[in-house]
Each structure stands twice: as structure tokens, then as C-alpha cells.
């Protein structure tokens, strides 16, 4: 099988996230970067499918040169090819992102189409919930979001989507797109050898070409802090009584 996974490079914040002085981006000065969580599971899912069914996995990302780091990380856990759709690194709106990715995939597929294409349900930062769907439409393929289980059969793909108390089952042709969610699997860590091998990955770079969509960012900002005092019930097991008082008051006892 030929599987394509589209990933996004996002910062990995702690308990507090800062915005740059001009408000146009997250202040990532102290931060490391990672692949957005849903997509990390997508990469792992693709590699597991490759291990089961044979084939190869291509990982694609749209971003500046620094996004190569995420392609190499994917290679260190088993991806075979990496494609960088190169931009100036600034955040792009979802229409523009999808258009550029769709064009790049179209070029990649001129000889040999992908079977399965995986996107993250939404990115950790922008959370647009739409890039995968737009790309799927541009490529003329069906897509279902929220997928946490994938089984590949001969001519079809069975995908499971979690709902409250259970899951829904979808059946799609093998040439389909899925928006996956974290929980699809527990991604493996790279091995030392995997990491070293990933340095040899030849990343194919294509220019990201697309017009801006209808959204234009004015600024990012932090929501107003709800300042309220935390009532300290105690500093040890003796606080248990006060805790149960609270539970009683709330009526959950």
C-alpha cells in the first residue's frame, strides 16, 4: 500500500503559552516543536499498516525549512519518504493550506496514486477542522473525520469513530482520506538507529503555491484570566474531612 500522512509542525508548550509582541504568532522562543498529536498517531497508524500490508509511507508537511525536523522524526519511526511543501513559515489560513497541499499531492500522484491518505482531525494550534476535508474534495476522495481505528481489507477500509459510549463504523473504498485522532494508537518512540537513519532521508521540496483564502489574522491574544482565589482546604491527609464537606455540599456524595 502507498500511504500518505500529512502532518503539521506545532510548538510544545507547558502550562502557559505566550504570544509574540506583535501578537501575530505564539512566542516559541523557549519551546520545543513536535508533530501535532493527532498526526503523530497518523504516522504511527500508517507505519503499522505498512508493517501489516507491506508498502511505503510518505509524510508531507507544509511549512518553512524548520518543518523538515518533523519529516525526519517521522522517518526515524519508519516513514520512507518526506515531502516539504515549502512556504515562508508564516501561519497560512486553512483554504490556502489545503489548496497548496492538494496541488502538491496531485503532482506527487501523477505516476502512482496513494491508497490511503491520513490527516489529523484538527491541528493542535489553529484547530481549523477543515484542511483534510478540503484536500479530500480537491482530490475527489471520500473522507471521514474523528477516526480512532483503521482496518484495511482487500478493496475497502473500515474506520471506527468514537462516540459517547461506543463507536460508529464506516466503510470506505481503499482510496480514501481519513481524519484521525489521538487514541488511534500509542506512537512508538524512535530508536537510536532510527534517528541516525532519518538523517539520510532525502526530503523532496516543492514550492507551496496558493492564494490566500477569506480569513486574515488580526492578532492572537490570551483570553481574560478568570482571577479567583483557590481555597486551600489543608496541607495533608487531615484535609480529607474538609474535602468531603465540599463533596457533600455539591451533592455528589
Amino acid at each position: 500500500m502507498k500511504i500518505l500522512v500529512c502532518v503539521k509542525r506545532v510548538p510544545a508548550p507547558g502550562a502557559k503559552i505566550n504570544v509574540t509582541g506583535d501578537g501575530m504568532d505564539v512566542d516559541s522562543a523557549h519551546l520545543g516543536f513536535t508533530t501535532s498529536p493527532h498526526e503523530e498517531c497518523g504516522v504511527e497508524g500508517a507505519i503499522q499498516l505498512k508493517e501489516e500490508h507491506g508498502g511505503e509511507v510518505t509524510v508531507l508537511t507544509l511549512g518553512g525549512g524548520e518543518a523538515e525536523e518533523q519529516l525526519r522524526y517521522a522517518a526515524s519511526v519508519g516513514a520512507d519518504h518526506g515531502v516539504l511543501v515549502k512556504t515562508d513559515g508564516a501561519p497560512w489560513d486553512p483554504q490556502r493550506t489545503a489548496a497548496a497541499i492538494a496541488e502538491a499531492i496531485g503532482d506527487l500522484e501523477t505516476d502512482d496514486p496513494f491508497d490511503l491518505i491520513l490527516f489529523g482531525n484538527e491541528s493542535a494550534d489553529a484547530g481549523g477542522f477543515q484542511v483534510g476535508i478540503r484536500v479530500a474534495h480537491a482530490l475527489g476522495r471520500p473522507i471521514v473525520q474523528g477516526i480512532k481505528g483503521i482496518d484495511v481489507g482487500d478493496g475497502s477500509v473500515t474506520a471506527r469513530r468514537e462516540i459517547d459510549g461506543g463507536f460508529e463504523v464506516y466503510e470506505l473504498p481503499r482510496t480514501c482520506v481519513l481524519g484521525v485522532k489521538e487514541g488511534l494508537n500509542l506512537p512508538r518512540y524512535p530508536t537510536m538507529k532510527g534517528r541516525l537513519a532519518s538523517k539520510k532521508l532525502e526530503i523532496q521540496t516543492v514550492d507551496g503555491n496558493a492564494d490566500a483564502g477569506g480569513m486574515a489574522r488580526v492578532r492572537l491574544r490570551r483570553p481574560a484570566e478568570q482571577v479567583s482565589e483557590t481555597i486551600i482546604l489543608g496541607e495533608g491527609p487531615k484535609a480529607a474531612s474538609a474535602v468531603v464537606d465540599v463533596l457533600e455540599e455539591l451533592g455528589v456524595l
Partner: protein
Amino acid sequence: MLLVILEHDRGELVEAAREALTFGRALAEKMDTDLEAALIGSDHDDLVEAAGAFGAQTVHTCTHDVLSDYGPDAFGAVVAQMIDSLSPDAVLACGSDRGNEVMAQAAARLDVPFVSNCTDATPGDPWSITRVQWGGSLLEDTTLEADVPMLTCGLHTVPAEAGNAQDADAEEFDAELDASHAVTIVKDRVVQEAGVTLPTAPVVVGGGRGVGSENGFAPLEELATLLGGRVGCSRAVTNLGWRPHSDQVGQTGTRIAPEIYIATGISGAIQHWVGAMASKHILAINTDREANMVVKADWAVIADLHEVIPAITEEIKRRRG
């Protein structure tokens, strides 16, 4: 008019739909236009009436074989066709999983912009919109240029509130759907657990890395069971393989909304906070007084969770006799 796409399940409007109507009612007023709604896959009077109670004047219903169950392609196609035929001034849905999916499907078909998870929208040329990023930890102010703005409002941005009750008219909408739209219809539904689930639990007892091990969660399980609730955990815990992903409270896990969330040994990284912030009350148990979770909690016990949780369990048992 402002067209609100309503999500429904087993003959009832879901909470998300009611929130969307509430948000839509205010937005329609700002737009100085009528509020209308769309029901896809149903024409039940109950649902029409319910929409009317929230201010919808007209409810466009659409039924079809292909709409017998949920399917993103089919539903998205219907919305796209409604936009073409009914010419709304703007379209709104709630930012639930399905809401975002259906709106994105429609927007993709029409190749128009779609802005998800808004907290505020002001019509204009262009529109001024505020939406969430990082699951709600940051806000993005953005402008929107579109012939027909398509938005979802963030879940729980506004509490559902009936108002401006109308005697809503039901109008049938004929959609052109065929087998190609049926490819992504739900094929099957599997119920895995009855009873209290994490998203609906009234009490959640959460544990982070501080719990120490998979087995370390036993006291948390006991406490949760006693209180008729569920155990949740942080992303660190699921990454370590101590608990399944379905227990994860967080931006990429489950968003909980219990009466009380007891967060133990959890520092409160922003992605975890996003999953917990809809809790009505929070009690934090942590040795770090300045941990994010403690700072944001209503109550806190500054101590080692391994000492405190068993003590709480004991006290509950004692009081129950």
C-alpha cells in the same frame, strides 16, 4: 436570513444545537435579519417546535434515503445545496465534531471560507470574528471576507437559552443526493459501555504522572467508584501506557464537564486544562501550590496524593456508615 444547521439525535435536538440557536439568535439580531434553521435527516414536529422555542422562524427539513443515518458527505451536500437555493446571509452550526465536519464538507464543496469554533462574530465588510486556538488557551481575532460566511460557534461558548419563541414553520427542502453521497454513511454502531462515561460523568477523579504507575491508579478508581464517577488522566499518563487513551482528559482527548473534577498530581499543562475547563468545580491535590491546576482550581489540598486520596475514601466510607 441566518441559517442554523441543527444537530439531532434520536428525536431530540442535542445540547450543541440549542447552543447554536442561542448564539444564532444574538447574531441574527446583530445582522438585523431573521433566524432560520435546517434539520437534515428529519422532519419531526418535535424538533421543529424545539427550534421555534429558541427563536427560529422557519425550519427547513430535508429527508432522503441517503440521509437515513449520519454521513458527512451527504449532510455536507445538503448544506451546500441549501446555501445555493436558500441564499442565506450566513450559515452557523455548533462546533461539535459533527458540526465542524458538516460545515467543512459544505465549504469544501462550495470552495468558500469556513471559520470554526468562534466565540464572537460581528457582521461587516469584512466580518470581525474571534475564534479559539489551542483548544481555547488562546484567542484569534480574524477578519472574514466571504459571500456567505460559514461559522461554527465553539461548544459551550454560550449556554443554551430559549428565547424569542416562534411558531416555527416547517419547509421541506428537496436535496439531490445519490449513491456517491452514501459512501460515507455510518455503516454500524457499536455500544461499548453502559452507564457513566467520561464525557458525561458527574465526578471525574484525574491522575497525572504523579500517580507513579499503572497500579497507582487503584485508589483513584476506588474513589471514583464511590462517587459514581470515572477516572481520567493526563496525556503524560497515556503516553506512558498506564491508561488507555479513552481516559485522557485533554485537548486531544476527552473534554469533561462534571460537577467536580478532582485533579491529583496534575500540573495542568494547557492542553490538559482545555479538556478540564468546562468542569463546574475543580479540586486540585498537588504538592506544588503554584501548579497551574492549583491556581485555577476552586479548592486545593497541598499534599501528596498518595496520602490524601485514601484518607478521603476513608472519610466518605465513615460518613456513609
